[in-house]
């Protein structure tokens, strides 16, 4: 589940040493701390992808600093050490680590393990820490998986996307159908407790039957977590150009809605419960704790080119290019490109837009009078559930989940 949109927001500059305002660290002990580690390399770029990722193995930054796939782990470990300095005497152990990309498994398993080790050395890992990596079905084998497991990884997420060859082809995915399901079994055999499969629906040319087959195949493989995303055609991608030229049809929003309902039906029948708009798990323990940090306003440090961080109301993001990123760290500077200090109102709005996507919903106490009136209307329109509402929470119904953004626009008033 590649996390990083390619366009960076506007913001104020980050100080060269990466220092945070004192307010950001106030009360930190009460918030969990996570790490996101970005690996910006892929073997090939997929036609729908607009994430910050590169297919070249070597990229040169200013001052001739070489950012290569081979020394990438060392560069990233430099940022983990910088994080230690910036967070100073913050006593927290790390609760979650998530390695995403790009394709993290293009790096040697030992690279991923070394990065994790650096976090353990600098911060300490909680005993029950969740440690996840994304993995490409074609770039792992039992030995690789075993090495990750031995190194401390306990959760793995495979990009399956679809069970149909023709759909994978439109997405430029190179793996063969069946391979991701086999990966689940290999991961289980290697001792991974938690396994996720990512699916994409609404790809041009995908039929209802294709989607049903993908859901059935994913469920049949036995993961404890499934993420299902409507295909977003981002401007500037190869797929967007192909759609504009009329080579492939654009999928209608109503088709997306139908496919989403199919996913909900099929997954819930198989024992998966939704806990965020696009995420389902077989148990509370199967939920992705790291992602929940994002959704609940917790702190995380995002290391790597273009990675976003959040600590106590300060959001910042790193320079995008791996060369520029490596150059900054080589000079002992923060690779931060910009940041924003959230106002109380920004934080209130963010809580509404993030928490409304969750199964627990938003406390009505966060809403102002116009927002409350909007919530009452949404309740009457069948977009919010009655029981949680009665106990003071706005929780989306199934139909409401599909209209979450529209509901948010009204609730923030």
């Amino acid at each position, binding site marked *: 589940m590649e996390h990083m949109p390619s366009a960076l927001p506007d913001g104020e500059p980050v100080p060269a040493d990466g220092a945070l305002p004192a307010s950001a660290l106030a009360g930190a002990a009460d918030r969990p701390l996570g790490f996101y580690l970005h690996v910006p390399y892929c073997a090939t770029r997929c036609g729908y992808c607009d994430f910050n990722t590169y297919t070249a193995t070597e990229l040169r930054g200013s001052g001739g600093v070489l950012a290569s796939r081979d020394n990438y782990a060392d560069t990233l470990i430099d940022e983990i050490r910088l994080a230690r300095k910036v967070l100073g005497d913050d006593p927290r152990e790390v609760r979650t680590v998530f390695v995403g990309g790009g394709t993290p498994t293009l790096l040697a398993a030992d690279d991923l393990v070394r990065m994790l080790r650096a976090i353990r050395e600098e911060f300490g890992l909680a005993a029950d820490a969740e440690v996840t990596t994304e993995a490409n079905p074609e770039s792992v084998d039992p030995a690789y998986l075993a090495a990750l497991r031995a190194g401390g990884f306990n959760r793995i997420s495979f990009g399956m996307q679809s069970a149909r060859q023709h759909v994978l082809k439109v997405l430029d995915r190179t793996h063969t159908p069946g391979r991701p399901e086999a990966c689940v079994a290999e991961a289980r055999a290697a001792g991974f407790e938690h396994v996720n499969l990512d699916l994409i629906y609404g790809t041009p040319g995908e039929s209802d039957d294709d989607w049903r087959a993908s859901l059935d195949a994913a469920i049949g493989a036995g993961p404890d977590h499934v993420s299902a995303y409507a295909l977003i055609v981002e401007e500037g991608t190869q797929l967007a150009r192909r759609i504009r030229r009329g080579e492939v049809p654009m999928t209608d929003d109503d088709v997306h809605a139908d496919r989403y309902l199919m996913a909900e039906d099929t997954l819930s029948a198989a024992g998966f419960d939704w806990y965020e*708009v696009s995420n389902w798990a077989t148990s509370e323990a199967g939920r992705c704790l790291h992602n929940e940090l994002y959704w609940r306003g917790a702190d995380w440090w995002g290391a790597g080119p273009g990675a976003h961080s959040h600590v106590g109301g300060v959001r910042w993001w790193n320079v995008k290019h791996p060369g520029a990123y490596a150059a900054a760290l080589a000079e002992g500077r923060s690779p931060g490109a910009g940041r924003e200090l959230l106002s109380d109102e920004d934080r209130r709005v963010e809580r509404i837009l993030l928490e409304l996507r969750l199964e627990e919903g938003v406390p009505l106490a966060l809403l102002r009078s116009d927002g409350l009136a909007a919530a009452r209307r949404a309740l009457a329109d069948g977009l919010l559930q009655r029981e949680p509402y009665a106990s003071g929470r706005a929780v989306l119904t199934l139909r409401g989940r*599909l209209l979450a953004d529209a509901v948010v626009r009204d609730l923030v008033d």
Partner: protein
Amino acid sequence: MPAIPSHVPEPSRTDPALIRNFCIIAHIDHGKSTLADRMLQLTGVVEQRQMRAQYLDRMDIERERGITIKSQAVRLPWAPTDDKGNTHILNMIDTPGHVDFTYEVSRSLAACEGTVLLVDAAQGIEAQTLANLYLAMENDLTIIPVLNKIDLPAAQPEKFSEELANLVGCDPDDVLKVSAKTGLGVEALLDKVVAEIPAPVGVKDAPARAMIFDSVYDSYRGVVTYVRVIDGQLNKRERIRMMSTGATHELLEIGTNSPEMLSADGLGVGEVGYLITGVKDVRQSKVGDTVTSQHKGAEEALGGYKDPKPMVFSGLYPLDGSDYPELREALDKLQLNDAALVYEPETSAALGFGFRVGFLGLLHLDVIRERLEREFGLDLIATAPNVVYRVVMEDGSEHTVTNPSEFPEGKIDEVYEPVVRATILAPSEFIGSIMELCQTRRGVLLGMDYLSEDRVEIRYTLPLAEIVFDFFDQLKSKTRGYASLDYEPTGEQTSSLVKVDILLHGDKVDAFSAITHKDQAYAYGVRLVAKLKELIPRQAFEVPVQAAIGSRVIARETIRAIRKDVLAKCYGGDISRKRKLLEKQKEGKKRMKMVGSVEVPQEAFIAVLSSDDSAGSGKSKK
């Protein structure tokens, strides 16, 4: 260098026998302003180096569109070629060139004894020129037919001399041929004006009577009133009386234009000039009114006075509701100089606060709207133009409807709509398509005449409402631009008219209501409903879009409820972007107009009300 005439008679002391009052009747681009420029030069009133093209057209907007809206009068001294010692005074009265200003044209003509009929030698006479020619003939004016632009390669002087001779009733050889651009033939024309146009005749010792033929607001001097003295004499510093209202004013200044204003001691019989009284509003100095002296003034006004009557109405709304006070101020300012412009505040549930504005016609509407947008920097939404209906109920009560949404409910006995007599001039190959167009617009053929072998004049009675609906654009496109149109109001007729309402989710949208003939109601409804379906984004609920006559639905489309409005992914790197997107969407939402519970983007109103392919759009481009 033009010869400067000697012994130029002074205003107030000019023998009427030496005066010639004339105007120029011409189509928009047939060269009237250029001809006027040449006359200014030849008579020496404007020095060569001060000359600029279209000297007399004051407003930029006129110069740009190549049209003349406001008339003026210029006093030109001219010594005829064969009588050099006898300097005459030629008052050239400029006439408005457009259909909407027929009444002003008629007053300008009434100030003259003769007219120069100026026609492009490459194009022949156009409908509006013909209409004004008929008007001049009715006023018994002496007509001097002139072909202009004879230096053009495309000129056909023989053909069009024939055409003019037929219309005027003269010999083709009597048609003067000039080039206003090069000046060729213009001296001969001035000589002919002296020779053929009668001198004015009036009673010198009678109480003063002067007719107002134009009235212009000037921000420095207040209203400048242009008059033609019929009887008696007006003198500086006397008190004068407007005979239609009885209002009296002190004459602060009296004078003539050469072409700039020059004050004088007075104006005598037959003379043309200006008055300044210090009034600030052209309504206090109305075209057609009679000016007399307060002391021992005339008992009886000159005939022909009419109050300007708006024929076409449109709702004007600021795009940004907070511009409403600016719009009011701008209309107030324009009204100072435009006695025909009327407006009153109106509120639309869909468009907010605005004004219902009455115009003489479509060009008038266009010019006002353009000036509001250009000179006052306002962004406006204009509702589709409509005419004034008279609705008589079964109980005998009567309603005047200037806004379709005010069309009365209940038992209607008769509906009256204004009709016009339309004159269309076009090459004869287009007769079929013109007739077809007029038939679909409920026209009744009055007659048809060939002006020459291949040019025809077609006369129809048409409901004004049909002309207001993009008729001119259609006519132009069906005749490859060759047809010209003129129309004059001729009264009213009863018609089977109905009001078509547009309902969004059951709520009427007042701005889209229209009055149409019952046979056209269905087509109107279907078109508008389809258009709205395309323009209004899907809402959280299903929105029926209906066209209805009373409670009877005649067309329906459904905007399906939106089922998906959620981004699939929202992780750590998406949050800032998503919050900013939300802020942007909130801004966009503020620009939506709420119609009941339906959010309608402003663009939908603009597209439906102003685009040419929309149902009932009436934007004219004359």
